[in-house]
């Protein structure tokens, strides 16, 4: 249902960030987008969700199809209305508003606003902790609670595609597992497709159906979760395993590291 066809993104008319990225997300799928920092993963998400424009970026070539209609370079709020919601990296909250107000804002775009009560209840069933915190000013939430809140807020808009940017960033191992469990549950119960950008390849591959690896603004590798997990390069660079399948110690990293890059 989402098809990204060979897009190029340029910032401030000078900086070329994406050099022809193509991939697709099918209904009900969880798709992961992996790759090192600066590969262009976040930019790809922003290109889809229309958030590039506030950063002076622009899709200059290629197209993004949503249900076979092009949606590149549209306004962000319009994209949200079409059913694509991005959860931005860094867990941005309306810090001076309460948890419940934050959630309501997520639902404000949903045409039948009067169902907002039901929607809140639905979010609280996924994230029971938010119910206890609902009158709390969100600026005082911890990282994990914040992550729950932003995912909950996105759910309020009844998305058909949920895009998560680094949900595990800076979270404790237990919390990462919890969040990913909920994401999986949301995918299963709501039938929401999920596009996941994640550094934590182990966690990502544990829940995804399909994955793409990006480097330098290009897709360099793709495959099902199983295929990727079995790939030697993925093992070494993203899972930290040696050829023998054991994790190597960070103490043993040498100065003359062997670097391997796909393509160039």
């Amino acid at each position, binding site marked *: 249902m989402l098809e990204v066809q060979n897009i190029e993104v340029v910032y401030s008319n000078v900086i070329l960030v994406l050099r022809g990225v193509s991939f697709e997300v099918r209904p009900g799928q969880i798709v992961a987008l992996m790759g090192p920092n600066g590969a262009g993963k976040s930019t790809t998400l922003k290109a889809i969700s229309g958030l590039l424009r506030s950063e*002076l970026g622009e899709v200059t070539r290629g197209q993004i199809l949503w249900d076979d209609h092009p949606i590149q370079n549209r306004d962000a709020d319009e994209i949200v209305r079409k059913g694509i919601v991005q959860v931005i990296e860094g867990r941005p909250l309306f810090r001076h508003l309460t948890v419940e107000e934050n959630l*309501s804002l997520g639902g404000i775009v949903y045409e039948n606003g009067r169902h907002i009560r039901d929607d809140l209840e639905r979010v609280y069933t996924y994230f029971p902790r938010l119910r206890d915190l609902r009158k709390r000013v969100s600026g005082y939430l911890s990282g994990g609670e914040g992550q729950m809140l932003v995912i909950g807020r996105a759910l309020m808009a009844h998305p058909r595609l949920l895009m998560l940017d680094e949900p595990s960033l800076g979270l404790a191992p237990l919390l990462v597992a919890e969040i990913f469990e909920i994401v999986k549950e949301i995918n299963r119960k709501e039938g929401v497709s999920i596009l996941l950008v994640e550094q934590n390849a182990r966690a990502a591959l544990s829940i995804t159906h399909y994955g793409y690896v990006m480097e330098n603004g290009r897709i360099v590798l793709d495959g099902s979760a199983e295929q990727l997990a079995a790939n030697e390069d993925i093992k070494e660079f993203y899972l930290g395993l040696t050829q023998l399948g054991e994790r190597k110690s960070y103490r043993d990293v040498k100065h003359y590291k062997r670097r391997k890059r796909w393509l160039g």
Partner: protein
Amino acid sequence: MEILGQPGFAVLQGLITGVLTGGIYALIALGIVIINKASGVFNFAHGYMMLLGALIFWTFFQNQELAPVVAFALSGALLAILSTGIRYPATWTRGGRVAFIAVAWAVIGFILLQTDNLALRAIVGTALGAALMGLLIERLTIRPLIGQPLFTTVMMTLAVGEVLLGLTQVTWGSVDRSLPIFATVNALGLPQAYPPLRIRNVLGGTVVIKTELLIAFGIAVAAFIGFVLFFRYTRLGLSMRATAENADLAQAVGLRVRAVLAVAWAIAGALAALAATLHGSSTALSITMPGLALRVFPAVLLGGLESIGGAFVGGLVIGIAEKLGTVYFGSDVGEQLIPFVVLMIVLIVRPSGLFGEERIERV
């Protein structure tokens, strides 16, 4: 009967007048606060919006022949602009929207053309005109700057002020105008201001309460209660608070940030016109009006830039400080120094104003 060396009735008089003029200050502050709340922009053009708004009111109030036509055109333009931003029920067809606008326009036009009540017509016409002014300012000058440094936008409001000044000059010239709205008609057929309320023999003298200031104060109070409820309980109010805090994020969660900003500017435009008209009714409509907005800045800060209630309290505090300062230290100290001294003290004691939101900071 003396209070701290000054005649008691004079002190009381200063206090009462301070509270009442503070009401007008508060309304002006409210207009500035609302734009700041929605878009984070400190609006230097507010004084000029006041001038233009009040002159629109004057035109409707003064002119029986031309004004209805102007109002009719105005309401059409306003509806046309709004129709691009209003969210209709999704099921409406294009024809339905056109019909809706046509009916709305006809209703407004009917009120404007039929009524003999100058004041009613002026109020409707001004509300439309001032809201249109706000919308146009937002659309033409503020919207192109979304995502740009905040100070650029603040400077833009300054430039807008200059343009508004030029426009008022072209259209109305710069002579002072009287605006007797709170008045009856006397035997000669002249408008006669409502007599002030006099309370005799209080603290050794007579204390008077200007009726027009009292009415203005009442309107201000009503406006404030309305806005507090608006921001607390309506979806639009919530959207505005969200947009003010983080416009990029608001857009990301799907708010129509532009529409929200446009509405905020329209409201501010109408508020500017209201405050200016009330002020004009107590003295005169003068081209010096924008200077009044500058004098209200301390009130805005005193209350806190984002606080509706704060704007109200700030307005009153500045009003009272001015008048009591005048009673005790003379006008050159009272009106020109005291408000700023009060501001300095408050800012040092409470850096984000009396009711401003504490910044939530984390490292």
